[in-house]
């Protein structure tokens, strides 16, 4: 498996696990109150930090594991990286527009922050899955 494909798998898994942990923490924090009143900021910041650190650590880990494999990335990896990022970024735009709409209608901060976070996660997952598909099945 190509070095960059391993990283794509790692980033997809980290994004899914991080968001799942966040959802569980927020749901457990409701304690009978409405969801919108649940404390979410701490859980959100910690899981985002976890995602960043885990992404860096996994990249270093794969780099060490492949240190004797010679070249780790080439023109195909760069091409797939660009395509995958381009696909993932569609959710960044969706998240931005959704957050703007929620702000215009004066929705609670909870929903604005959460729609942004969800779209960041979906962007990372979709982008990584697109890269994996390109590695497995070829470029369009």
């Amino acid at each position, binding site marked *: 498996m*190509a070095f960059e494909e391993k990283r794509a798998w790692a980033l997809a898994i980290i994004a899914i696990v991080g968001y799942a942990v966040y959802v569980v923490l927020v749901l457990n924090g409701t304690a009978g109150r409405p969801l919108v009143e649940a404390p979410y900021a701490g859980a959100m910041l910690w899981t985002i930090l976890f995602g960043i650190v885990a992404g860096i650590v996994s990249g270093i880990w794969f780099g060490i594991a492949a240190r004797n494999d010679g*070249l*780790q990335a*080439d*023109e*195909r990896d760069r091409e797939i990286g660009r395509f995958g990022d381009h696909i993932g970024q569609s959710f960044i735009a969706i998240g931005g527009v959704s957050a703007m709409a929620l702000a215009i209608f004066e929705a609670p901060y909870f929903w604005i922050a959460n729609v942004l976070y969800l779209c960041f996660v979906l962007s990372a997952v979709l982008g990584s899955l697109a890269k994996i598909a390109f590695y497995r*099945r*070829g*470029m369009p």
Partner: protein
Amino acid sequence: MKPTKVTNSIRALRFAHGEMKQADLAAAIGVTRQTLIAVEQGRYSPSLEVAFKIARVFGVSLEEVFQYPEEEEL
């Protein structure tokens, strides 16, 4: 997803050149082994520069390495 219509004879050329290993050819043309495998299997069309490098390693013309079907065959 439709694979590339470009076909190639890299596998045959490798065997004709002393059963050259994929890793050796990949190193000679500056790509990863995974990319060379993808090219061999028709899952990736390399850049023109890489295509020329492959032909040069085998000492043959580009069309002896890569083939593209005529319009009526597509």
